[in-house]
């Protein structure tokens, strides 16, 4: 079932931060992992991911570095800064609280 675009858009930043909290990744890798973990439910495109990555970089939450990967190709890796790590933690907490509240309404006691 395709999700509402706005709903998907509102979670991109959270998911990117959460993934980058695990390790530094390049753009295509982030999309691959999201697709793998969601069984393709989120069909992110360049227009979805890169603006978010660039905005977070501009805000000082991410740093970038060009590295040569195992395949010999150069890729631009994104990693969280200390400030970004703290921001990622805040965003996850915010999401958990939000989803818990939504669920509390949606899942009525039998």
């Amino acid at each position: 079932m395709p999700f509402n675009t706005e709903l998907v858009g509102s979670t991109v930043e959270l998911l990117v931060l959460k993934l980058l909290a695990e390790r530094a990744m390049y753009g295509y890798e982030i999309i691959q992992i999201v697709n793998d973990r969601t069984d393709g439910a989120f069909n992110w495109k360049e227009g979805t991911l890169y603006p978010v990555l660039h905005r977070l970089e501009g805000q000082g939450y991410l740093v970038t570095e060009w590295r040569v990967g195992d395949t010999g190709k150069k890729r631009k890796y994104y990693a969280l800064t200390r400030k970004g790590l703290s921001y990622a933690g805040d965003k996850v907490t915010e999401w958990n609280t939000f989803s818990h509240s939504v669920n509390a309404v949606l899942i009525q006691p039998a």
Partner: protein
Amino acid sequence: MQEPSFEKLAADAAAGLRADQEVYRDVTQELHSFLEDKADRFRREGHDEAESVGLAKKAFGSPLEVASELLNANRGRLRLRALLRIGFNALIIPLAILMALYVGYGRAARVQNASAMLIGGGAKLPTLPFLGTKAVLDAKHAGLLRLPVGTTGNAPRLRQFWEAHRDDLDGYKYYAYYALYASGDEAQYARDMREGERIEPDNALYNVLLAEYYLNRGVQARSDSKKKPFDDILDRRLFNFGIVELHKAVKKPYLRTYHLDIVRLRLNALPRPLLTEDYLNRISMTSAELFPYYARYRNLARKISAGARSLNEEGQTHDAEAVMDAGESYAILLARDEDTVLIGALVSTAVASIVTKDGAEFYGQIGAQTKARQAQALYSKLRNFSGNWKASRHNNPAFTKMLKRHGSNLSSVIFPVFGGVVPITEGELTPGRMQEHALIEGFGLEFLQLLLALLLVGTVMQGIIWHYRLRGAVSAPLLLMPPAREILRILWWGVALPILIYAVYSRLPIIGGRQYGWGYLGWRFGAELLVLGFLVLWLPARMINRYVRRRCDDLEIPLPPAHEEAAVSRMVRGMLIGAIVLAVIVMALPSDRTPLVLKFIGILLALALIVTGARYAAAKRREFGLYYGTLARSMAPLYAFAIILLTLTAQPWLLYREATWLHRDTVLLGYLANSNSGPTACTSIETRVTQDYSRKLLQVLDRKR
């Protein structure tokens, strides 16, 4: 319609970022790499090449939409980077150049003014705030002094000053000071000296000055002229007046000029001293104030002897003997006045030597054998005393060694003048030595800043040249903006850390070697500063070079192969060295034996070498002009930051150290500011030495009595 390539697609998607070439190139490369990855995935899934590329492009979506999204996401960053670029080009670089010029001019003014004060050469330059207080007395600060400077031309102003302050506690001193420089016709001069006598009846100064005034005009001494080597009374009336004044003078209890009080008054009116040149200014003022009238004291001694001899030749032996007796009393009167200024004590010795030597001869001629023997004995003692003092300057190797090892260069110059028995300890030499270290380190730092400024201007020029050469190309040279962290890393490792290591190392006890003077440390001090200078110039250049190369590689800017770059650099360096060597040889050729045409050809050849080297480098590097232009443009801000960093940290620190050590100095320069109430002399050591010298001189002179 032909399908756009990945490059074109990525470039179109990043088109909105073109205003910032670094971001544009970066994003283009990123999107291109993304498209490649996506195509790879389709290839792995079994699609053929064309299908894989097509699917990747299709999945990419509309480049226009992506461009719009990317522009929105990067708008803030682009604005900030644009501001930073303007800041680098219009603010940081000009500010650094201004700072370097400010520091350079400040040092030039300090050096020039110190030189003008010490050796009197060249014009004095205005000093700048933070880089030294008033080394030159401009009109405003001269006005702060309570008295005009003592010169004959200033005599009317000196008198006005006395008239305005005649009822002050020190009013009589101001009159004495005026009397030293008073001039005018005979009647006026006599009236001035009579006025002095009335103000201070016990002071022999006015009678001495008047006696010198009359005798200088009334008597010719045999030492006055080689053409007329004989004594003669030229004007009987003036001669008689002079002798009367001389007899009056030697009957008075003391002779005081008060010039030391006046110098102290003047020094205290100066702005607070801060740096070395301020102290040199004080020494210069003190010297200028004390020297002018010593010649008159010595002249009077010669005229007394000439007068006595002339009277004797006329048969007035009794009067002549009285004049010669008065001469010896005058010498003692003078010796008692000078107690802190060495030159004054030496003049007293010279006067005593003249009157005793001439007295021995004179008394012998008139048959006063006892007096002749006494005068001869006294003259011999004076000669021995003076000779021993002079010899002691050269016969104290232990003291000379201590000065050389632990003293500053200034102390090594000044202290030996005072004789070999200067009562000074190693500890007292420390402030002067450390002040000199700070001063030399300051010179080194400013030289380094000058070199950094030259490199900065050089890189800016190179950036402009490459921009001009690459006009019409796809891209102009970029001004890469390393992240703040990278800039701080380069400044820390390349500039701050080497300087900190030097600062800590050089101040370490024993190892640092700062227990020794600059003259003793010699090559070691120079080598340390050279190594430090080299590191501060080389390390940041190396680090920014590596950063720029890496970034250019990321941004797909063609890079010259390292071996090719090294070969070009070697060739250019060789040509430049050749040009310098040629120019030096041409300049060193003796002007009188070398035709001007030859020198002209030599200079032309040197210039041709430089131009050829530059053209060779430009031709070889043209292919990689974008990289070299980017390198030059990106290095300039780093040099600017280095200059600003040094100007705001190391520079004030060294000035502070120099001022601190100067104020701690109790024997050399700092003494002039530290002692407002003590005896005034050029240094406290001079005071100590002169007091000791004067005491011994008086012992010699009094032994006769």
